C-alpha cells in the first residue's frame, strides 16, 4: 500500500514537473514571437527606420518558430493548471484552437513568401499578424489575478 501511495505521489509530482516544463517552453516560444513581432512593430511606429532586410529576417525567424508549434506536444491535457494563462477553452474546443494555430501558420508563411518592401506594406502585414494574435488570445487566453 505504502509503495502504491509513493508511486502515485511520485507520478503526480513528475506530471506537475513535466507540465511546468511544457508551460515554460510554450511561454518561451511566445516570447520569441514577441521579439520578432517587436522588430516589425517598431518600424511601423517609426521608432526604427524601415529596413527590408531586417523585415525579412524577423518574418523568417517568426515563421520558423510558428511552423514548429505542435498543439499535441505543447498543450497536453492538464497543462491548463499551473503558472499559465492558457484558457481551459483550448481543451474544450481543440478543433477551434487548432484552426487558430493553422491560421497563424498560414499568415506567417504568406508574409515570408511576400515580405513587405515598404512601410505601407509592412503596416498591412503587421496588422494581419496582430489580428491573428488577438483573435486567438481573445478566445484561448485568460488573464489571472
Amino acid at each position, binding site marked *: 500500500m505504502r509503495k502504491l501511495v509513493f508511486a502515485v505521489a511520485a507520478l503526480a509530482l513528475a506530471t506537475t514537473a513535466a507540465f511546468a516544463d511544457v508551460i515554460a517552453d510554450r511561454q518561451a516560444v*511566445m516570447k520569441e514571437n*514577441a521579439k520578432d513581432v*517587436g522588430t516589425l512593430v517598431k518600424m511601423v511606429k517609426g521608432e526604427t527606420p524601415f529596413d527590408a532586410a531586417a523585415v525579412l529576417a524577423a518574418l523568417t525567424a517568426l515563421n520558423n518558430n510558428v511552423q514548429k508549434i505542435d498543439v499535441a506536444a505543447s498543450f497536453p491535457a492538464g497543462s491548463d493548471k499551473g503558472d499559465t494563462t492558457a484558457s481551459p477553452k483550448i481543451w474544450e474546443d481543440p478543433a477551434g484552437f487548432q484552426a487558430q494555430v493553422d491560421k497563424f501558420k498560414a499568415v506567417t508563411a504568406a508574409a515570408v513568401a511576400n515580405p513587405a518592401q515598404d512601410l505601407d506594406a509592412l503596416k498591412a502585414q503587421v496588422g494581419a499578424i496582430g489580428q491573428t494574435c*488577438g*483573435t486567438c488570445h481573445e478566445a484561448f487566453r*485568460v*488573464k489571472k489575478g
Partner: protein
Amino acid sequence: MAVLRKLAIAALALGGAGAAAFWWLTVPEKLGAETLAALGTGDATRGQRIFDAGGCASCHAKAKSEGDARLQLVGGVELKTQFGTFVAPNISPDAKDGIGGWSLEDFANAMLKGVARDGQHLYPAFPYTSYARMKPADVADLYAFMTTLPPIAGKAPDHDLAFPFNIRRGIGLWKQLYLSDEPVVALAAGTPEKVLHGRNLVEGAGHCGECHTPRSFAGGPENAQWLAGAKAAEGDGVVPNITPEGRDMSGWSESDIASYLETGFTPEFDSVGGTMVEVQKNMARLTAEDREAIAAYLKAIPGRANGFSGSQPKPTG
C-alpha cells in the same frame, strides 16, 4: 382579539407605507428640460466617433461582425452574469423591432437615465451608469448617426433573469445608489483639456469602468476602486487594473497606452486578448487625439490596489 386586530392594521399600514415608499423610490425618472435643451440637433459625422468609442456594435451587432455587418444593430448578443442572461436588443432604426420610432428625447432618456420609451427602467447591462456622464450634445450626435444605419427586422429574445432581478421596477432602487451624472474622478481646476476629454471618453461613452471597476454585491460599481481591475463578468479570468498602480500597465507611458489602443500590441509586443480584443478594434477607429486623451486621463487618475483580490461573488452563470 382587539389587540390582534390593531396589530394587523398596523402591519398593513406599515406594509402599505413600504409599498408606497417602494413605488415612490422606483418611479422611472426622465430627463429635465435643461438637459433636453442641451442636446441640440446632433451631427452624424461626429456621432460615428461616439458610436466607435462606445463600441455599440460589439453588443448590438451579431457576434464577430466585420465591415458593414457591424452597422446592422439587430441585437442578440448574450451577457451571462450572476443575475441571469441579458440579451442585447435590436437598436437598428427598424420602426417595429428596433428604435426607429424613437425621438431624440426618447433616445437621450435611455442613454442618460436608463428609461425606455415606454417609461420602464432599462437594465444596467446596458451601461447607462457610464453613459449618464456623457455630454448631452454627444448623445444627440450619436442619435443622428444611428438614424443613418440600416433598419433590420427581427426581435432579439428577452432577458432570462432570476427573481428578484426580473422585476424591472426594482431597478429604481438600484439607480438611487448608482446612477449619477457627476464625474467619478474629480479633477482640479486648470487640468489640461486633453485629460478632461479623456475623462469624458473613459467615464462616459467608452464605459471602461463597467469591466475594469469591481462591483458590489448589488452589481453596482465600487467607485472607490475605480478602474482597479475586477473579476471578469463571464468566465474565470480577471480584468486588469488600469490605474497607475496596476501591475499590467504600471511601466507604460502615455504613448504606450495610446499605441496599445491603436495597434493591439503592448510595449513588450504581447497582443491584446480576451474581451479587450473587440474593444481595441473599436478604439483603433478613434482619432489619435482621442486615444492620447484616454492615455492622459489614465495616467492622471489615482492609483488603486487590485480590485480583483477582494471578495466579490463568483458569477454562477
